[in-house]
């Protein structure tokens, strides 16, 4: 056992303490690992000492059940110990590399260090999201079954916890260049939030996050500012579009980046990206696909050997990003189309919901291959994304019908198949997608119509969720207001105390409603998602 592991961990639940010790036994084979851990520990101690500690926060606890979701805004270099949390309010740490670690007691420090090692181990095995990787990561990663799920609640589902909000504000303040005192602005919530969702943010489109950014905003790269605005105004929407835009912007950022003296590109660039990511998540919470893309980039950056010249490194990174986009998005959609076209036969009536770039692509390809079918596009207020899908399909020449989602029971008897897109596939087999998807799957099931979900593997995520409440996104509530015959009833909804508007963005579909998931790896049932995740992680 390494020396650091030999200490007693006082503040930890004995049950979990035991798990820690067992884990360490497992990793005893690779002595190399522990040495690396020591190195990493030393580096981190240095970084901790650099930062000031303000207040003594309470010992950090975490809920074990929820995995830290991929859209965590910051790069969590350190993890707090994974306690079996009592159902008490959770104070998650928002730590970035420049973490605000308050002065702690010895026991807490030890507990922290232990958790850090665990997190390093788990992140090495690829299961953890965004752990700070050291330059030398040669994992002979044996996927460890007894991983304690070291999770952290992301900030964006803790809006009702004032301590978490304070921490976020401080973190955003700290993400500043030392000379210039501008920072990533904290966006404030808008309007009355329905009590069931008081733990989520609700922003208004009328108050963009860039209002408080001073000029020149040297902390945040201008193309990131532009991207953030495009996200918050809804100009770029859709999982694939957002990820691709993000990756292109990162390419630009890397292009413009220059390593400051006495710093290593692999570490400094990652630090530079953190405020950008915080800013983007303030504009709009990160999607699962974006989170995976960010993880990939950070891993690639950390893997740049230190002796690499700057230009060479930048070129390599840009090539990595290009290949990621190409493999995971473009080629994946080709593969998925190939599989999906097998499932479309002549005379089919296919129902699609909203605007999924992947499903539109599949239908266009099938039409090119001379399949005879017609499409029913289901749309819903307030986003009315189906109009865009309708436009694309009609342009191609496909015969289309258009209905709103309330007419679903009317139109379903004619339908032979339902194709749905997904925003993310969760590890327990639930499909997270645009709100209304679960409804379509439910009614299709009642009418015995097969439901096929099309999803690329880069959208698979380790989170688990059983309902649409705990982790969701609240859109601008003013979108629900509509004017009919010159009258809009909800115009002054803010003035009425007991009236609330709820504009959800996502919902989760249980796996028993979904008959098949078509991915670039093939056609799998919904419940095989964790298998795919495991295979992917071993490959990496």
């Amino acid at each position, binding site marked *: 056992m390494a020396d650091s592991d030999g200490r007693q961990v006082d503040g930890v639940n004995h049950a979990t303490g035991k798990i820690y010790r067992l884990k360490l036994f497992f990793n005893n084979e690779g002595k190399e690992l522990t040495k690396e851990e020591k190195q990493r520990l030393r580096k981190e101690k240095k970084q901790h000492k650099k930062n000031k500690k303000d207040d003594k926060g309470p010992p950090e606890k975490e809920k074990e059940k929820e995995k830290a979701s991929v859209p965590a805004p910051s790069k969590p270099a350190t993890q707090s110990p994974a306690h079996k949390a009592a159902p008490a309010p959770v104070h998650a740490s928002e730590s970035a590399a420049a973490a605000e670690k308050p002065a702690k007691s010895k026991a807490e420090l030890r507990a922290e260090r232990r958790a850090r090692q665990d997190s390093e181990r788990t992140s090495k095995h690829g299961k953890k999201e965004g752990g700070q990787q050291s330059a030398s990561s040669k994992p002979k990663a044996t996927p460890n079954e007894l991983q304690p799920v070291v999770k952290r609640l992301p900030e964006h589902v803790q809006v009702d916890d004032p301590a978490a909000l304070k921490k976020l504000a401080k973190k955003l303040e700290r993400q500043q260049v030392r000379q210039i005192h501008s920072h990533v602005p904290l966006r404030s919530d808008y309007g009355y939030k*329905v009590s069931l969702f008081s733990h989520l943010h609700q922003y208004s489109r009328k108050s963009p996050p860039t209002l408080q950014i001073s000029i020149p905003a040297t902390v945040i790269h201008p193309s990131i500012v532009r991207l953030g605005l495009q996200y918050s105004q809804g100009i770029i929407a859709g999982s694939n579009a957002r990820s691709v835009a993000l990756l292109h912007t990162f390419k630009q950022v890397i292009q413009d980046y220059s390593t400051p003296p006495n710093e290593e590109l692999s570490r400094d660039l990652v630090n530079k990206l953190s405020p950008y990511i915080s800013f983007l998540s303030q504009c709009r919470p990160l999607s699962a696909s974006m989170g995976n893309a960010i993880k990939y980039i950070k891993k690639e950056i950390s893997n740049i050997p230190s002796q690499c010249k700057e230009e060479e490194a930048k070129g390599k990174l840009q090539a990595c990003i290009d290949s990621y986009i190409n493999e995971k998005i473009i080629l994946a959609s080709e593969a998925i189309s190939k599989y999906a076209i097998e499932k479309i036969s002549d005379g089919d009536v296919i129902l699609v919901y909203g605007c999924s770039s992947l499903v539109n692509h599949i239908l266009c390809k099938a039409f090119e291959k001379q399949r005879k079918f017609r499409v029913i596009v289901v749309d819903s207020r307030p986003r009315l994304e189906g109009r865009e899908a309708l436009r694309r399909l*009609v342009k191609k020449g496909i015969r289309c019908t258009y209905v709103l*989602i*309330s*007419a679903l029971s009317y139109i379903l008897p004619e339908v032979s198949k339902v194709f749905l897109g997904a925003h993310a596939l969760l590890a327990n087999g639930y499909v997270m997608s645009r709100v209304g998807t679960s409804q379509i799957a*439910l*009614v299709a099931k009642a009418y015995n119509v097969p439901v096929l979900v099309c999803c690329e593997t880069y959208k698979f995520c380790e989170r688990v969720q059983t309902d649409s409440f705990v982790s969701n996104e609240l859109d601008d509530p003013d979108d629900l207001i509509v004017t*009919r015959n010159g009258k809009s009833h909800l115009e002054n909804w803010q003035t009425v105390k007991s009236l609330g508007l709820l504009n959800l963005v996502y*919902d*989760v579909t249980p796996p028993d409603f979904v008959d098949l998931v078509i991915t670039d790896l093939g056609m799998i049932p919904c419940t095989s998602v964790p298998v795919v995740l495991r295979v992917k992680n071993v490959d990496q």
Partner: protein
Amino acid sequence: MPGADKETELSERIEAFLSELKRCGSGAGSLRGSAETARETTSLLRRITAQARWSNAGDLMEIIRKEGRRMTAGQPSETTVGNMVRRVLKIIREEYARSRGSTEEADQQESLHKLLTSGGSSEDNFRQHFTHLKANVIEAINELLTELEGTTDNISMQALEHIHSNEVIMTIGRSRTVEAFLKDAARKRKFHVIVAECAPFCQGHEMATSLSKEDIETTVIPDAAIFAVMSRVNKVIIGTQTVLANGGLRAVNGTHTLALAAKHHSTPLIVCAPMFKLSPQWDSALQELVLRSFCFLLPGEILSKVNAHCPVFDYVPPELITLFISNIGGNAPSYIYRLMSELYHPEDHEL
């Protein structure tokens, strides 16, 4: 001649009523509730009884049937008109039978037995003339009118039996009955209401503003979020346009989805419907489609190449419904056929 004046006045009124119905259906006129339509139909029928020329019950029934057919043809989806006509026909039959002296119990006894034994022998029974028939019929119609006026209150009185405190109740669209029901319960209990807005007309917005004015915690959700929030809902309370003879509903579109979601989460679905909505007709071909107000959603050049559908009503099968609350109390959907046989005579099912 006073008689002719009365007749022309009568036909004028009938014409006015018909045109009003047609206008409401096309959305140009003000939207009326079914209660209002029922009341107006009944008062019109009373007027016909009072002013038209008839000598025996058979004539009266013929006149009313004729007018009834005209009225229902004016707006087929407004079934309350036809229901009221049938109620009045049943009243005439009852009054006639009472005047003739046969007891009511004998008439209502085992309709199946009657079918087998008497067959069509009741046809010529209505030719006898009774002096007081007119007065009796008008009195009975007045009773019917009183009953109609009290339906909403009767239903709202039962609210406290069904809503406990801190409940989350979901409803869809706008129903005056449900509105009164919830407001009555809100006087004594605190609960939360989620209203699905029911696109494209978004009548749910009106409902929500009206409920929130009574200090009821209300939330408006788009139709797409119905399944997403259903897991937190304790009860679903809806109104309906028509209650069908098998216990099913013809309700505003989106109700079937709501009912399926409630079934999936085992949430009880309660329908507040007064008795005058009960209809023996089921015309499956009658599915009104409204395209006008819906087309604004699509730009012109796409609209020309696309079929757009916007149905107004949904059919909800009786298996998805838990309870009917009407002015005569609560009933299970399996009992509706029995109530139907008490309200209408089987020969009047086809006007």
